[in-house]
């Protein structure tokens, strides 16, 4: 066990994957000489050389498409997109190619690509660098969408993602890169199941990624008021671990969903719909959710804070559901 940051955990996972399999390589904007815009790939160029740590032009569509082509050609590419805001330039490649080729080829071709991207706000980088678009990708059949919220998940999700014969998108909330924790060097994380981060009996708080810390803090504050909140970390946004969602809601009969995406048509909306479809009779209060305000995420710190989910908002939503 060693004390590592989320950033180091991702780097370590990439290093181990590259050591284990010659077909693995990393490409993206500034991943080589600059060491990655979030310093994830610092040092990897020296270790593995420019053939395997490849700087690309500012052209998300082109290099994502190249990654998909490499995967079709037998490689195991890791494509880094600087933020999910820029990934919209490559969404045609992701959705029309990566997600569909297995289906359209009748199962003859698979696309074992892993696409990593940063997501989320909170760093005063203004609207074009701060949005949370993972919910959009979770809409697309044919891909798997992961959201590591802990250092351990950041360390352990890459290997099974590379083993998956189909495209896997990993959304790393940029606020998490400095988080540190004691993590086993060769941690194994399953990429099929959500996980309960805190047991509780009065209300379920369902979240993922960058909101997990805020949600756990909210659960702590609720505990101070004698309210026992259970925190479910989804971890996998597609396919959703519906059984885990229904299990926690059936247990506590109340639920707040915390999602940094905008609320209209959001992942939170999908989760609510599934709860209503399958667990309606177990509910003892209306469902509630805390999402980002429906504005482009603002630059000014106080406005940005007001736009994003916060511990206070989560506590307030939980108390309202409980009628307190």
């Amino acid at each position, binding site marked *: 066990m060693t004390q590592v940051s989320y950033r180091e955990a991702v780097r370590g996972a990439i290093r181990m994957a590259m050591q284990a399999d010659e077909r693995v390589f990393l490409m993206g904007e500034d991943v080589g000489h600059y060491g990655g815009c979030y310093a994830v790939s610092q040092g990897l160029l020296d270790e593995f050389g420019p053939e395997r740590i490849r700087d690309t032009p500012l052209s998300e569509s082109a290099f994502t498409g190249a990654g998909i082509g490499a995967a079709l050609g037998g490689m195991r590419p890791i494509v880094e997109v600087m933020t999910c805001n820029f990934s919209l330039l490559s969404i045609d490649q992701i959705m029309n190619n990566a997600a569909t080729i297995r289906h359209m080829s009748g199962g003859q071709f698979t696309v074992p690509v892993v696409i990593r991207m940063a997501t989320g706000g909170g760093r005063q980088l203004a609207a074009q660098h701060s949005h949370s678009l993972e919910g959009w990708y979770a809409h697309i059949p044919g891909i798997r969408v992961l959201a590591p919220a802990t250092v351990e998940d950041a360390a352990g999700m890459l290997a099974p993602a590379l083993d998956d014969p189909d495209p896997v998108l990993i959304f790393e909330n940029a606020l998490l890169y400095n988080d540190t924790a004691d993590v086993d060097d060769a941690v194994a994380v399953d990429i099929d199941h959500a996980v309960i981060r805190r047991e509780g009996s009065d209300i379920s708080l369902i979240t993922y990624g960058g909101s997990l810390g805020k949600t756990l803090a909210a659960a702590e504050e609720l505990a101070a008021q004698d309210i026992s909140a259970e925190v479910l970390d989804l971890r996998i946004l597609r396919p959703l671990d519906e059984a885990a969602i229904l299990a926690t809601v059936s247990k506590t*009969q109340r639920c707040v969903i915390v999602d940094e995406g905008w609320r209209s048509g959001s992942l939170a909306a999908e989760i609510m719909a599934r709860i209503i479809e399958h667990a309606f*009779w177990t*509910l*003892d*209060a209306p469902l509630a959710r805390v999402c980002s305000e429906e504005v482009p995420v603002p630059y000014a710190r106080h406005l940005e804070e007001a736009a994003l989910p916060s511990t206070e908002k989560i506590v307030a939503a939980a108390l309202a559901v409980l*009628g307190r």
Partner: protein
Amino acid sequence: MGTFVMPSLGADMAAGTLVEWLKQPGDTVEHGDIIAVVETDKGAIEVEVFEKGRIDELLVEAGSAVPVGTPLARIDGEANGVKPSATGPAKPKVGTEPVRATPPRPSALLVMKGQGPRASPAARQHAAERGIDLASLAGSGPDGAIQLVDVERAECIRSEPGLGSGPDLSAMRRAIAAAMARSKREIPHYYLSHRFDLSAALEWLERYNAERPPPERLLLGALQIKAVASALKEFPEFNGFYGEEGFSPFPAVHLGTAIAIRGGGLAAPCIRHTDTLTLSDLMESLRDLVARTRRGQFRSSEIADATATVSNLGERGVESLWPVIYPPQVAIVGFGSVMWRPWAVKDEPVVRPVITTTLAGDHRANNGHRGALLLRRIEQILSEPDKL
């Protein structure tokens, strides 16, 4: 001003014992509130009031047995300034609102659905399973919503020793005897029988239930009740009451369901406005009704208002039954068990699930030709279950 009288809770009821007042002078009551508990041959029945206003005076003490029609309480009409009179009802002046004889029934259900107590699904389900009336509970949730904890609290209070927990079966048997003897004595029954292929309904039901957890699944009985209610809507001469002035059809379908009670009892309370309910609402009502009936807790409107009845032998393995009309109704539809039988499809024999439906009709109100069309219509509705 209105007078609340001892209701007739069945064609054969002559008198009842007022067991308990649930409202006191000064209380305000709404249409549908439960005002008193009356003991009859069928058990203790919660009686609803159809007036809106304030209870002015209770005229009969709890424990008294009085004939049907005896004034039990005076209710001061809401804010219309009419003072209660000491003796006899005053003749209404021309132009004033007439004394309300019948409430506007068709909207009653909608009113209950929309403005009933605000309760969580968990509380509703728990209350329905235990026969607890949500309207009698106070909610502790957001905006006064009734939550599970409120139902559980009520359950604790109710489970303490008090009124008898089940219906008095020997009295119920006497009531059945009186009603059925009168039926066979007075009603010229005719009978029709029709056997048909039920595979469309059963396949649809299987698909519907496969996707749902057990509490949301439907029983075949719900489909049958809905099909009969929908068909009766098209054949009004089978839906209503036969009184001294002959038959009068009733605009709404309140379909009674014969429910067997362990130990030999039988009651046929109704689900009001059966034809307008969705299948899932109907199933919920049916579960609730069965649970309460087995404890002898049905309401006056459920026991007195049925406009026709369905009797279903379910899985008892008998092919058909010949039901007896419950007066003053004029029709009863029976369903036998589903039987796998050889069946001709085009010119091939195949094995199909087959059901026998029967109709007992009151020949004073309707006749066999229309009765046959009614049974055929029920078959047709059940053969297109996705339209239910």
